[in-house]
């Protein structure tokens, strides 16, 4: 019952073909798409910037190192030149022993100290510094005052040889240092070139990445947004221009796919509505044909030469055909009004049991093959409702029960009350309803079995409208081939019927 109940609570105009929710597709949403595009854009640009900045920084570092190295090389060369100058000086000194040269010697020593300090600051490795220190010490020793008072034991010739040896060693150190420095400069230059080309490469790759990213983004936007959007537009335009088979392809970003789905569902329901209206028209036309036939035959009979008794009977029958016609027209009008939502209730307190008995006594004689069994409480069941509409519900359900049990049989009408509601059951033993047909049973213009029952197919939709307008519900239980039970639940007027006098 629960499943039938829930399917019945669908809206009045059901989305017929879209009954089952469309299968969830694992597609990108526009939001996710935008987020992904933004994020990948940021990542690409960030990587590119980091690459360019990193390689530029290393390029600057390499340039600075090269600068230092070449300056160091220059200073070391200067030291060498100064050293050679002072050798010349020292050579003169050794030969001439001129005391006047002492001042020049001291000046040379002083200059060399300054140069050594500059060179030391520019050297990068400990080994280089040690070598520089060696050279400095040796040159210093070489340039030291030649003859000291406490050193009388040594011969001037021996002293001069020693000094010359120190000087040669110092020069060897300086040259080695120069060679090393020159190699460093070469290495620095190479590194600088490498960094420059790296920076170039990073910039070019980044640019290419941005271009490719834009192309990919354009492709994705086309696939997920523009193409489905254009497709949807065409489908809508086609549908507007009268092609009721036009449907949108469900693809692209999820939001668009869902919009397409909704459009397709709407199109399905509009197409179904149009179809139903045609079926309804056919039903109405079919219903009009019988009384029209009767009228034609009756007029013909009146034109024939017949007895007065026959003429009286024909006129009586003609009257009834005209009544039938106006009844059908009234039904259609009523149904149309209710369909359009104009249902006015004239509520009053009345006894449902009495209404049930009245309707059954009116309808029972219309069929010889059906037996209507009524089971109602003895006490009145007071409803605050529109009695005419409630009787319309009952007579619709009863005439359906008769229509759909063409072989005849028993029809039960039961009224059961609880403290809050009254339940009205109409049970037939007819052809029953296929489970699949139940959800659409209450949709307007649906006839369960057109080959068995004629009619507009509006009965059950009108019944549901009326029941809902009273704050009630209607459900159906059915087994194919065994029969159906329609169950109407209506809220009770107030406290149990004891207060009410027996009607």
């Amino acid at each position, binding site marked *: 019952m629960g499943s039938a109940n829930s399917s019945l609570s669908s809206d009045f105009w059901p989305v017929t073909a879209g009954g089952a929710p469309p299968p969830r597709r694992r597609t990108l949403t526009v939001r996710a798409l935008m987020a992904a595009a933004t994020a990948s854009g940021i990542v690409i640009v960030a990587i590119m910037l980091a690459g360019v900045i990193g390689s530029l920084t290393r390029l600057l570092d390499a340039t600075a190192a090269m600068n230092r190295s070449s300056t160091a090389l220059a200073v070391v060369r200067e030291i060498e030149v100064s050293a050679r100058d002072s050798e010349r000086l020292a050579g003169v000194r050794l030969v001439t022993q001129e005391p006047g040269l002492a001042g020049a010697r001291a000046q040379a020593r002083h200059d060399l100290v300054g140069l050594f300090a500059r060179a030391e600051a520019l050297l990068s490795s400990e080994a280089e510094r040690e070598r520089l220190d060696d050279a400095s010490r040796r040159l210093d020793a070489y340039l030291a005052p030649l003859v000291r008072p406490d050193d009388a034991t040594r011969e001037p010739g021996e002293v001069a040889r020693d000094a010359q040896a120190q000087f040669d060693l110092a020069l060897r150190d300086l040259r080695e240092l120069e060679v090393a420095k020159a190699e460093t400069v070469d290495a620095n230059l190479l590194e600088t070139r490498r960094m420059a080309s790296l920076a170039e490469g990073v910039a070019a790759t980044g640019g290419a990445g941005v271009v490719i990213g834009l192309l990919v983004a354009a492709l994705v936007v086309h696939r997920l947004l523009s193409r489905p959007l254009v497709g949807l537009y065409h489908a809508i335009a086609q549908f507007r221009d009268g092609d009721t088979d036009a449907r949108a392809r469900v693809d692209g970003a999820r939001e668009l796919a869902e919009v397409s789905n909704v459009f397709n569902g709407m199109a399905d329901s509009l197409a179904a509505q149009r179809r139903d209206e045609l079926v309804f028209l056919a039903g109405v036309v*079919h219903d009009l044909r019988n*009384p029209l*036939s009767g009228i034609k035959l009756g007029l*013909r*009979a009146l034109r*024939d030469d017949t007895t007065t008794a026959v003429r009286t009977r024909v006129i009586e029958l003609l009257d009834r055909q005209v009544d039938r016609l106006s009844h059908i027209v009234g039904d259609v009008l009523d149904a149309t009004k209710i369909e359009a939502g104009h249902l006015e209730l004239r509520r009053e307190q009345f006894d449902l049991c009495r209404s049930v008995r009245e309707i059954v006594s009116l309808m029972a004689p219309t*069929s010889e*093959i059906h037996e209507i069994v009524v089971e109602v409480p003895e006490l009145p069941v007071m409803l605050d409702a529109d009695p005419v509409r409630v009787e319309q519900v009952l007579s619709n359900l009863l005439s359906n029960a008769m229509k759909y049990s063409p072989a*005849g049989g028993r029809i039960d009408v039961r009224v059961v009350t609880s403290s809050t509601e009254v339940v009205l059951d109409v049970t037939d033993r007819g052809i029953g309803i296929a489970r699949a047909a139940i959800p659409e049973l209450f949709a307007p213009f649906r006839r369960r079995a057109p080959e068995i029952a004629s009619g507009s197919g509006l009965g059950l939709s009108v019944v549901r409208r009326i029941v809902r307008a009273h704050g009630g519900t209607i459900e159906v239980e059915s087994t194919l081939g065994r029969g159906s039970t329609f169950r109407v639940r209506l809220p009770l007027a107030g406290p149990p019927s004891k207060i009410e006098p027996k009607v």
Partner: protein
Amino acid sequence: MADILVVDDDTDVAELLTIVLQSAGHVVRRAADGLEGLRLIEERLPDVIVLDVEMPRLSGPQMAYRLLVADAGRERVPIVLVSGVVDLETVGARVGTPYLLAKPYSAEQLNETLGLALTERRQPLPSS
């Protein structure tokens, strides 16, 4: 003139048809559904059956089918199919009769079809 059986659950229309046919001089019997129609045929074989399609208990096509399978000579009676259904031709093909009257029909159409059925006397030949 002719012995006609009218089978129609719309009793008013059936009665008016009976009056018209009787005033034309025919002998007319009436049945409200297929079962009653079969019973009347058993009593006496009519010259022609004027048969409605949609009826409770036993419909027109069902009744025609029973006449056919009974194979007792009754299947030779021509049938004029009368109905307001939209696809009367389809039903006619199923029953196998060429005599169709779509409601609402005029007295002229009635006379014409009935006359044809009475002179040709083509028996129903179901297509399948």
